[in-house]
C-alpha cells in the first residue's frame, strides 16, 4: 500500500508488560513514502507484522492531528522526534533520510510505567489534575462573561499555558524526569484568570504535593522541556508556580 521509496531500519522497544524486561528489536522497512506521518509508518510496520503472524507494536495515538496529546514515542533521543513544536503524528517521514536507522523508545520515567511496547501509563498526570487543577463553581445561571474584565496580556498568557496537551514530552526529555512544566502550565492557566483566584494557593500546594507523590524528579532548569514541548509551553510557568508556592507556604495564612 505504500508507494514511497525510503528504506529504513527501526530499532523499536518491545516490552510485554511492566513486569517483564524489554529490549530493542530491529525491523527493516522498505518502500516508505516520505509523505507518511511517523505513525502511518508504524501502521505499515504493524500490518507487515500481522501478515507475518507476529505481535504488532503497541503505541498510543488518537486524533492524529496534533491536539490530543496521546501520541508519544522517544525518537532518536528526542520526544516526538527531531522537529520542534510537533507531535509524533505530525512528524513526517521526509524529516528522515533513506537508509536511516531510527531508535524508538517509550517515555521513560518511574511515574510513567510501561503498559506495553511504546505505550506508557500517564495517569499520574490525571491524578495531579484531580488534586487541584480545576475551579469550583456553584451552580446557577451563568453570569455575563463581561462581568469579569481580564487584561489581554493576562488572557493570552493563560491561553498559552492552556495549550498544554498533557503528552508528557517534558517528563520524557527532562534528564530528571521532572513534571514541572506540565504541572506549572496546569496551575498557570487558572492562576492567571480571575476565576482561578479563590483556590489559587490551595491549588498550587495540592498539585505540587501530588506531583511529588507520583515520583517525578526535580527540576534543574536545563530548559529541555521548553525546547521539546510540542505546544511551546514556556519556563515562565515554572517560575510562576514557584512564586505561587512560596506565597502559599510563607505568606498565605491558609494551610493545606
Amino acid at each position, binding site marked *: 500500500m505504500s508507494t514511497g521509496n525510503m528504506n529504513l531500519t527501526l530499532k523499536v522497544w518491545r516490552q510485554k508488560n511492566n513486569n517483564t524486561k524489554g529490549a530493542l528489536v530491529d525491523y527493516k522497512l522498505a518502500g516508505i513514502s516520505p509523505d507518511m506521518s511517523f505513525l502511518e509508518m508504524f501502521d505499515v510496520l504493524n500490518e507487515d507484522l500481522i501478515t507475518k503472524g507476529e505481535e504488532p507494536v503497541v503505541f498510543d495515538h488518537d486524533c492524529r492531528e496534533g491536539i490530543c496529546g496521546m501520541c508519544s514515542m522517544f525518537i532518536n533521543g528526542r520526544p516526538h522526534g527531531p522537529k520542534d513544536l510537533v507531535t509524533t503524528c505530525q512528524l513526517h517521514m521526509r524529516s528522515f533520510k533513506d537508509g536511516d536507522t531510527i531508535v524508538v523508545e517509550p517515555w521513560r520515567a518511574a511515574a510513567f510505567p510501561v503498559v506495553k511496547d511504546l505505550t506508557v501509563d500517564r495517569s499520574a498526570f490525571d491524578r495531579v489534575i484531580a488534586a487541584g487543577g480545576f475551579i469550583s463553581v456553584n451552580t446557577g445561571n451563568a453570569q455575563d462573561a463581561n462581568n469579569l474584565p481580564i487584561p489581554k496580556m493576562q488572557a493570552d498568557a493563560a491561553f498559552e499555558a492552556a495549550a498544554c496537551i498533557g503528552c508528557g514530552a517534558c517528563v520524557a526529555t527532562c534528564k530528571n524526569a521532572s513534571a*514541572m512544566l506540565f504541572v506549572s502550565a496546569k496551575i498557570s492557566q487558572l492562576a492567571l484568570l480571575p476565576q482561578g483566584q479563590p483556590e489559587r494557593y490551595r491549588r498550587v500546594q495540592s498539585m505540587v504535593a501530588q506531583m*511529588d507523590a507520583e*515520583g517525578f524528579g526535580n527540576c534543574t*532548569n536545563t530548559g529541555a522541556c521548553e525546547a521539546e514541548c510540542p505546544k511551546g509551553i514556556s519556563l515562565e510557568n515554572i517560575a510562576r508556580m*514557584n512564586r505561587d508556592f*512560596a506565597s502559599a507556604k510563607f505568606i498565605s495564612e491558609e494551610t493545606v
Partner: protein
Amino acid sequence: MSGFGNAFSSSIGKKFIMGATGIFLILFLIVHAGINALIFLDDQGLTFNIGAHFMATNWIIRAGEVVLMLGLLAHIFQALRLTLQNQKARPVKYAEYDGKANSKWYSRSMGLLGTLLLIFLVVHLKDFWVVSRFTGIPTVDANGHEDLYAVMKIKFQEPLRVGVYVLAMVSLCYHLLHGFASAFQTMGWNHSKYNGIIKGAGVWYSIIISIVFAAMPIAIYFGIIQ
C-alpha cells in the same frame, strides 16, 4: 513551625534551598574575589594582608564564616538528595538520548562540575584556610600582619597546584553559567523586562569571577606580580 508544612521538603522547597544558598555563595564569591584581587596592587601583598587580617579577626566576619560553611553544606547536601531522587525518577535509562538537542551540556552536568569544585575546595581549604585559621601563618609582613601573601607565593610555585586551580576555575565558570540564571528562575524571579539583564549579568559574572581567580595563581607562578 506548624503551618509551613512541607515548605522545604517538597520538590519546590528543595529547589528554593538550592537557589537561595546558590545566590548566597554567588555573593560570597564577589567578596572573596574582591579581597584577593588586592594582590594585583603588586605591593608585596601589604594591602592584601590588611584585608586578610580583617577577615580573620573581625567577629562579624568570623560569624559569617560559620553561616557560609552551613550554606555550602546545605547546597551540597541538598544537591546530593536531589540527584539521588532524580536518578530514582528514571530507573530505566534511554538507549538513545540526545541531550545536546535541547539543553547546554553544563546545565546537565551541574553535579559533575559541583563534584570537581568540591574536590578543589578540599585542596583549597587545606592550602589556605587551615593555614590561616589553625596551623598558623609562619611569617609577618612589613606592617606586622600575618603574611598570607607569602603563603600564596610559596604555594603557587608548584605547576601542578597552579594547573589544578586554573582547571577548577573553568569548572566554576561553567557551574556559574548555569547556576546564576537558574537560581533566579528557581526563586520565581522570571520577568520579561529583567530576564535579559539576569542572563547577561550571569554570563559576565561567571566569566569575570573565574578569570579574576584563575589570574592569581597564573600571575604569581609566572612572576607577573612580585
